[in-house]
């Protein structure tokens, strides 16, 4: 071995050391060139990526607008829903300790607990930092219990979240609508190609009624801020705990409020006074077309439909034979029955086949060819003129008119009144109904049009079908002398501060020519229906104002040879009871249509509801005028009724609808104890 420091000379290494040095410098040059490529050449690209990394757009939800009634009473707003959120990343020992504790308080069954557990376990990566909804709408008691245990529940947040609240429950459900989660297809369709799309998955969107048709106004515009986030998606805070924000932001614009023309008080009365299982009540301003009250029964609860409905319950609702999801006031049509007779009468007068004074002798029916059309009064009404024909609802008179003029004049008149076309309330689905004419029958009826079809149509049977809403438009036009209005339920749109943004004015669709004589005749006839003995709605009269109206009893099942009482028939075979009316007759303000589906007779099962609505309307009008300091002009009372001997031509009918049925009495004013003891 060579001794150290002697022969092991290092001189021969010099050139090689230089070589190593050149290699090192070359290596560092390679690094610096690569750095140049990244930091100078591709700077823009990487800088953009680093900015993307740094910020997360956080949406600031715009509060949704309220829906109010005409006086400002809130119908739809937001309530706090007490929700439980779990953030998987912060939830330690989640399935073993935390979830069983929550399950105990909220009384979850095993299935529910496992469902939440699966949801928590499914989150991976940055998703683990997103709070998941574990329970919604827990009770205040449960909320407090969980709050007390919160130190044992890491990663669990309890928060009141604004949730849409329909204060009146099922009342107005079809009009107000409901909301639920938006679908991916809708997002694609609605968002378009904008930089900050208005909708995101998980958002709620109006599904029906005003919520849907006025979505654009009620929704408002979401704002956004840029939050600084770290690699795990956590929002960063400064030393004081404030959230770190990026440069730009935009404040949310709250949604606008929708003010309906409805009066909640009148609505409540209409709901209360309507006795039917199914049907509709519409109170419409005769001279504007604005809706004051609208009942469609049965209904669903929009609070339930708004994100709180189970698939099972939804199935139940859809399977319910009474079809609570159907908007009966506008999306279902019915035979109008005798309420249609005003159209036939006006058509006959204008076609010249009848004059106000010409009479028809009713012997209990009308024979055309080999068939006999029965009048509802089998003993006959005797000699009836136009006014009496409406008052006693004599079918024979209208059979005769139809025989003389055919179906087309009736159909034209009906179409002028808006039948056969959607009334266009605009907030809910509507059907056009059917106003058959000869062309219609030629096309759809096997064997084509025959005169008998005109006879059926003349009394509101056959193929003629109307929606309660169309009938409301029709009777308003009768009451206001021919002005057909488009029905409307939204009075105006207001900013959140109450400034009017858009105000809706009455929309007249057309005017039906009508002579004063014709108008007076029809009004007199309709007044006599309610206010003269023998009229089919005589029991509905008021002593304070004059109601003009017409009852209707629409057949659903083919009549057998024996007439049955409604109690003797299956529910779905019973007649529909109609009452169409307006008041005061001299200067009509309010049109009220009542349809009691399978309810029986118009006079007994529909008219009393209308009477109650009118009573409430005038009571409220009086109260409001006092409150507002306006002069109260009471409506003119009707002519006093003299009970003379009954008209021999029309003896009281046993089936006279006016003799049976009534509205449930208003609830007695309960005196509340000062302590507010529960009623």
């Amino acid at each position, binding site marked *: *071995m*060579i001794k*150290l*420091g002697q*022969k*092991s*000379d*290092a001189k*021969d*290494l*010099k050139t*090689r*050391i230089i070589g*190593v*040095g050149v*290699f*090192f*410098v070359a*290596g*560092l040059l*390679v*690094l*610096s060139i*690569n*750095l*140049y490529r*990244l*930091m*100078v050449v*591709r*700077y823009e*690209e*990487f*800088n953009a*990526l*680093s*900015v993307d*990394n*740094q910020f997360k757009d956080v949406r600031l939800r715009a509060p949704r607008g309220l829906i109010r009634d005409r006086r400002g009473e809130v119908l739809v707003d937001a309530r706090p829903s007490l929700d439980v959120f779990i953030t998987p990343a912060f939830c330690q020992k989640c399935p073993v300790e935390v979830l069983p504790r929550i399950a105990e308080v909220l009384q979850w069954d095993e299935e529910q607990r496992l469902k939440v557990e699966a949801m928590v376990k499914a989150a991976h*990566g940055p998703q683990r930092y997103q709070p998941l909804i574990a329970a919604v709408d827990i009770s205040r008691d449960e909320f407090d219990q969980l709050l007390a245990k919160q130190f044992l529940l890491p990663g669990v947040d309890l928060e009141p979240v604004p949730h849409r609240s329909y204060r009146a429950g099922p009342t107005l459900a079809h009009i107000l609508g409901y909301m639920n989660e938006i679908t991916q297809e809708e997002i694609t369709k609605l968002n378009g190609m904008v930089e900050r799309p208005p909708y995101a998955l998980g958002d709620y969107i109006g599904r029906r009624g005003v919520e849907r048709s006025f979505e654009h106004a009620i929704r408002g515009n979401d704002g956004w801020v840029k939050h*600084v*986030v*770290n*690699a*795990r998606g956590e929002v*960063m805070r400064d*030393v004081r705990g404030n959230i770190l924000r990026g440069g730009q932001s935009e404040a949310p614009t709250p949604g606008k409020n929708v003010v309906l023309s409805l009066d909640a008080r009148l609505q409540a009365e209409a709901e209360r006074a309507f006795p039917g299982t199914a049907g509709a009540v519409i109170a419409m301003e005769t001279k504007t077309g604005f809706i004051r009250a609208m009942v469609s029964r049965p209904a669903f609860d929009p609070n339930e439909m708004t994100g709180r409905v189970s698939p099972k319950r939804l199935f139940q609702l859809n399977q319910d034979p009474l079809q609570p999801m159907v908007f009966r006031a506008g999306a279902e049509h019915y035979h109008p029955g005798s309420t249609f007779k005003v159209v036939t009468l006006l058509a006959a007068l204008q076609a010249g086949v009848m004059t106000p004074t010409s009479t028809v002798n009713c012997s209990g029916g009308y024979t055309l060819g080999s068939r006999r059309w029965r009048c509802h009064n089998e003993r006959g009404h005797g000699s009836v003129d136009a006014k009496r024909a409406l008052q006693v609802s004599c079918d024979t008179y209208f059979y005769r008119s139809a025989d003389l003029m055919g179906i087309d004049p009736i159909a034209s008149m009906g179409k002028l009144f808006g039948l056969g076309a959607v009334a266009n309330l605009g907030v809910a689905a509507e059907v056009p109904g059917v106003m058959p004419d000869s062309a219609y029958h030629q096309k759809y009826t096997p064997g084509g049009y025959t005169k008998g079809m005109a006879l059926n149509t003349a009394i509101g049977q056959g193929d003629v079908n109307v929606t309660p809403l169309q009938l409301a438009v029709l009777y308003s036009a009768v009451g206001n002398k021919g002005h057909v209005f488009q029905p409307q339920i939204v009075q105006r749109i207001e900013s959140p501060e109450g400034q009017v943004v858009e105000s809706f004015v009455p929309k007249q669709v057309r005017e039906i020519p009508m002579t004063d004589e014709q108008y007076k005749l029809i009004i007199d006839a309709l007044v006599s229906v309610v206010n003269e003995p023998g009229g089919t709605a005589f029991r509905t009269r008021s002593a304070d104002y004059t109601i003009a109206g017409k009852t209707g009893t629409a057949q659903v099942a083919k009549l057998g040879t024996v007439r049955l009482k409604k109690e003797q028939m299956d529910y779905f075979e019973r007649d529909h009871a109609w009452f169409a009316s307006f008041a005061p007759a001299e200067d009509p303000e309010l049109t009220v249509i009542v349809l009691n589906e399978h309810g029986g007779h118009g006079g007994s099962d529909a008219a009393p509801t209308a009477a109650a609505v009118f009573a409430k309307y005038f009571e409220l009008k009086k109260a409001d005028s006092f409150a507002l300091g306006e002069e109260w002009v009471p409506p003119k009372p009707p002519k006093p009724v003299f009970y003379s001997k009954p008209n021999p031509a029309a003896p009281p009918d046993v089936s006279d609808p006016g003799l049976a049925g009534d509205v449930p009495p208003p609830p007695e004013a309960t005196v509340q104890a000062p302590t507010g003891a529960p009623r």
Partner: protein
Amino acid sequence: MMELSAERRSVSQMPWLLLLTVVLTTAVGIYNLASASRPPSSPMWASQIAYFFIGSAIAVVVAWIDPKLLERLAIPIYLVNLGALVALKFFGHKAKGAESWFIVGPVRVQPAEFMKIGMLLMMAKYFHDDYRPQQPTYGFLRLIPPAVIALIPTALVLVQPDLGTALMMAFTTVTVLVFARPSLTVWIVAGVLAIGSVGVLWNDYVRVQNTEQRFTIIRHKLKKHQDARITGWLDPTSDLKGSNYHAMQSKIAVGSGGVNGKGWMEGTQTGLRYLPEQHTDFIFSVFAEEQGYLKCLGLLVLYAGILLAALGVAAGAKERFGAFVAVGIAAMIFWQVFENIGMVTGLLPITGITLPLMSYGGSSMVSVLIGIGLLINISLKRQRSGL
């Protein structure tokens, strides 16, 4: 010889350039660490200063050890280090999937960092002892002992597993072996081996093959994360959310620094913790993001200064032992810098390796400073041996 020695008997015997560049780089490292470990992290720069002083103290001791003692100690140091690496297998602390640490009271020691030095000393001693002026080139037989000296610790480090350090040790060994001047035969065989391994890489990773009957030579033997790293290195877009995520985030950090950088403590990738191990292995991306290209060049110049100063020490060494140690330490520093910055900028696959004097860590700091101490020792030794 005496005249030369007399000329060098002055203060310039101290490698001032080396000291200056080392102190400057450490200062830059501490400044950068203050940003990388900004709140809410603990202020690591303070500990780093402490490590620097501990390391400097050890370096001073190393620098003043009698060179002859150092040579005699080469074998025991090497063996003790080997023993420590083996012991690690039994008593080591597992962190991040690798057994690389001893925990002695409050101190965590990483034996691999010291093994490098032991390995270099051992190889230098071999080349010193084996000097044959009549046979200037090294054939296979004479290269086997140093290869074995290097291979044992490298293999032990590799199975920890610490691929980064093992690679660095392998590259350093190759550099030292090349420096020792292998024979033409060795060059030819090495060339064939290099082409062969490129071929293996091409066959296993680049060539498009049927997934079911894929023929691979070594790929199926690699661990999954190692395999993914090689795939990711060859194709950076292959798995952006998975194993390539960190590589991409690191490139974003470096690239977004631009010419002038985002400013000290202003780096967003750093502040928001998009970078893994940002105070150790990825410290350079913090520096690049905040300081920009020009200062990165400055840092590379500092490293170049250290390397050239180290080679200057090698050139000035009178004995082969000193020259080999100096070249070995320079190579070690070079390969760490090259591997680390190469990995951070996407030039090389991601392996765990620290950036000398910049990365946080006591073992890394102390081992580099021991190397510097050795360089000073060698530099001063020619003065004393000249007397």
